[in-house]
């Protein structure tokens, strides 16, 4: 049985809302329910149509279609007001359905109660059942009603979605880099001489010192190379040779900002460790790196490992075909031309034999040669060999000093044929060649060859791609012939370069070169002590805000200082700006590299 209050409310509502139904006296309750359903359907259709129409009008979609409407410019307004009215009346019809449905049910109950003679208790149970089922239906209805706002929101979004515009995107990966790095031995940091130190050049100043993880033994030689491919544009490799005869490799993982350390990656022995008996170079296209080193043995004399960007390969050996001495000195050069993966190698052994190979990208090639190149090199214990590529042709130039004073020899590998051994005579030399440097002009096939001989003379020659031009001697008494106290480097734009050398206490001399044979007069800058090692490196890009050439110099006070060349002025940035404590000058214990701008 319905509660009294509910029944009264239902009867009041019945009077107001059911009036139209009352007029239809013949309509049965079943038909009345059918009418209600029709109203609900009409209400829903009207409400949704109204929403749609109102949105069409609100978002100017009526105009956007470009169609011509019967009502012309008024179509939008009629559409809007029609839509609003439809929403209102549709909503009313739905409301009618919700209310009347309840009322009709109440009326049935009243009618049933009046006609029945069954006990009231029984009726009450029936009513309770009906209320339960009605409750369940209401619950369902509530769910439906809850979904409706979502549907309405989606519906209203329709014009917005239709209004979206196609865009296109292009993504740029920017790799920020330091301009240059210097790696060196220094009795500083927590591992003192057993760890390599690093500073970075930001275009104007050198940073404070960073310490690289320990090599486990005092460092003698340092060599570094920068990855030439953009994908790993953050990567560089530093290799050190230590007192214990072991090589240690450090790969900078710029993504995770950590050094990937491989201690004791190779063993050069305890004789070859007195010399620069290893080198590191990248293949230009693949970005794989080769570390090539003496194994201190007389068979399988050379070992090498490949860094593929993730890990080092196991050691592979090269049993030198025509020489048997322990390899003392190795120099590598990367072929610079497009799509190349070639690396040229020249080596010097304990028997003063000189020979060369090229790495093809997968194996070592003798370039068709069937005999050793040189059996009487100038000296076994100093770096009297060099290799470099002509930068436009991609031909490799191998050069070395001979045991005859003034005699140097060269061979050219053009990719398919190895040229004959040819004499490069430098008449002004005062002794056999001791130290050589070969630097390729970055924009032509030119090269400058620098020689410090046993008489401490400093000479140069220029290769124009076809022939050598020997220059007048620069100095007849450099600071030492036991160290490389002179170096030459090109400016980034080529054709011009800088020669710097130590020749007197507390000064460093320099000249500017313009290819093919124009040298400026000698200038000097003040330094401290005698400069025993001088190293110059070319900036790989030409920007006004950065140095064209950076240099380092190690003097007899164990100070490692910095040089900067801006195209007109050589600046001593500090005699011991890197360190004042290398504790030795025996080895070339430092290396400057510029990051590859690829």
């Amino acid at each position: 049985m319905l509660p009294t209050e509910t029944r009264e409310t239902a009867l009041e509502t019945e009077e107001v809302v059911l009036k139209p139904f009352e007029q239809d006296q013949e309509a049965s309750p079943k038909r009345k329910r059918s009418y209600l359903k029709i109203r609900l359907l009409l209400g829903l259709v009207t409400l949704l149509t109204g929403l749609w129409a109102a949105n069409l009008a609100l978002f100017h979609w009526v105009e956007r279609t470009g169609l011509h409407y019967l009502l012309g410019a008024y179509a939008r307004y009629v559409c809007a007001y029609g839509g609003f009215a439809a929403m209102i009346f549709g909503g009313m019809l739905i409301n009618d359905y919700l209310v009347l449905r309840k009322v009709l049910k109440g009326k049935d109950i009243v009618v049933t109660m009046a006609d029945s003679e069954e006990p009231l208790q029984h009726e009450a149970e029936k009513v309770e059942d009906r209320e339960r089922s009605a409750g369940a239906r209401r619950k369902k209805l509530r769910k439906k009603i809850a979904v409706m706002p979502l549907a309405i929101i989606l519906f209203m979004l329709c014009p917005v979605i239709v209004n979206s515009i196609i865009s296109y995107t292009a993504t740029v990966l920017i790799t920020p880099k330091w301009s240059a790095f210097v790696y060196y031995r220094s009795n500083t940091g927590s591992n003192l001489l057993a760890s390599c130190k690093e500073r970075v050049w930001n275009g104007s100043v050198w940073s404070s010192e960073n310490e690289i993880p320990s090599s486990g033994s005092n460092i003698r030689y340092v060599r570094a190379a920068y990855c030439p491919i953009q994908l790993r544009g953050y990567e560089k490799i530093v290799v050190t040779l230590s007192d214990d005869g072991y090589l240690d490799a450090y790969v900078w993982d710029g993504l995770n900002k950590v050094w990937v350390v491989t201690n004791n990656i190779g063993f050069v022995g305890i004789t070859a460790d007195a010399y620069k008996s290893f080198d590191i170079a990248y293949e230009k296209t693949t970005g794989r790196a080769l570390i090539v080193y003496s194994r201190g043995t007389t068979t399988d004399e050379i070992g090498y490992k490949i860094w593929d960007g993730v890990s080092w390969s196991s050691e592979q050996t090269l049993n030198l075909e025509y020489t048997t001495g322990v390899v003392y000195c190795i120099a590598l050069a990367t072929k610079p031309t497009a799509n190349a993966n070639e690396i040229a190698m020249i080596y010097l052994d304990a028997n003063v034999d000189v020979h060369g190979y090229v790495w093809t990208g997968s194996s070592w090639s003798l370039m068709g040669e069937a005999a050793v190149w040189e059996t009487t090199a100038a000296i076994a214990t100093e770096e009297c060999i060099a290799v470099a590529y002509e930068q436009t042709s991609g031909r490799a130039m191998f050069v070395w000093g001979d045991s005859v004073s003034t005699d140097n020899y060269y061979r050219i590998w053009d990719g398919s044929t190895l040229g004959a051994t040819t004499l490069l005579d430098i008449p002004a030399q005062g002794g056999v060649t001791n130290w050589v440097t070969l630097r390729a002009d970055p924009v032509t096939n030119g090269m400058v060859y620098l020689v410090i001989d046993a008489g401490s003379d400093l000479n140069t020659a220029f290769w124009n791609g076809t022939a050598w031009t020997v220059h007048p001697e620069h100095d007849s008494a450099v600071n030492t012939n036991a160290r490389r106290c002179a170096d030459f480097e090109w400016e980034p734009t080529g054709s011009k370069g800088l020669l710097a050398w130590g020749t007197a206490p507390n000064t460093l001399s320099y000249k500017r070169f313009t290819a093919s044979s124009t040298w400026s007069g000698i200038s000097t800058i003040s330094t401290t002590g005698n400069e025993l090692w001088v190293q110059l490196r070319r900036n790989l890009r030409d920007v006004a805000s950065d140095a064209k050439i950076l240099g380092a110099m190690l003097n007899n006070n164990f100070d490692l200082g910095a040089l900067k060349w801006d195209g007109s002025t050589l600046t001593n940035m500090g005699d011991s700006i890197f360190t004042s404590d290398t504790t030795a000058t025996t080895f070339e214990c430092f290396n400057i590299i510029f990051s590859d701008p690829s």
Partner: protein
Amino acid sequence: MKLSRDLRAMLGVKGFLCLASLTAIALALVTYTAPVTITPTAQFTIGATTASWTVYVNDINETRNLPGSGSPAGSQTPMFNDSDPSTYAFKVITDAAQVCAVKIELTAAVNSSKFSNFEITAKYWNGSAWADETLYNADTGSTAKSYINGLTFGDVGYIHQGTTATRYYLIMVTYSYDLVDETTLITVTFQYTPLPRDAF
């Protein structure tokens, strides 16, 4: 008569009002129709969608191009080849009926703690070289702007291409990376939106 009574009972006054509203909507949407053949025309064609640039700590007012070439990576404009989409950023072809504006923007602003400036401009291929293109501050109108500020999210620029023309464009950025000693990789995404218009 009975039908009328039935309808009245069935719909009521509100039902009739609903029908009236629907009729009004229907009336509003009555259109004249004519068969039309629609030929969709793509005015815009994307070119290079990726690029790699190398920037250096303490670079000041250096430029990079999208697409770019040279060394450092991106520092030179590419050798244009109309059959190679990797040599231009995008192409716009307009006919006699519609001009086209292209909105250029970044999907996210460049980090202003790293770059002190990041100015985006556009160039077009004039037949023999890449020439400066005028940037506008809206898809219509004639107010020019010198560059799009990549440090400000939402700063956009438009190029306006008139009727009956085919042009190839590239994006150039003048930047200064002089605020941090930081070499973490950076990703920048350029977004182009073609906007056909009757006139500028």
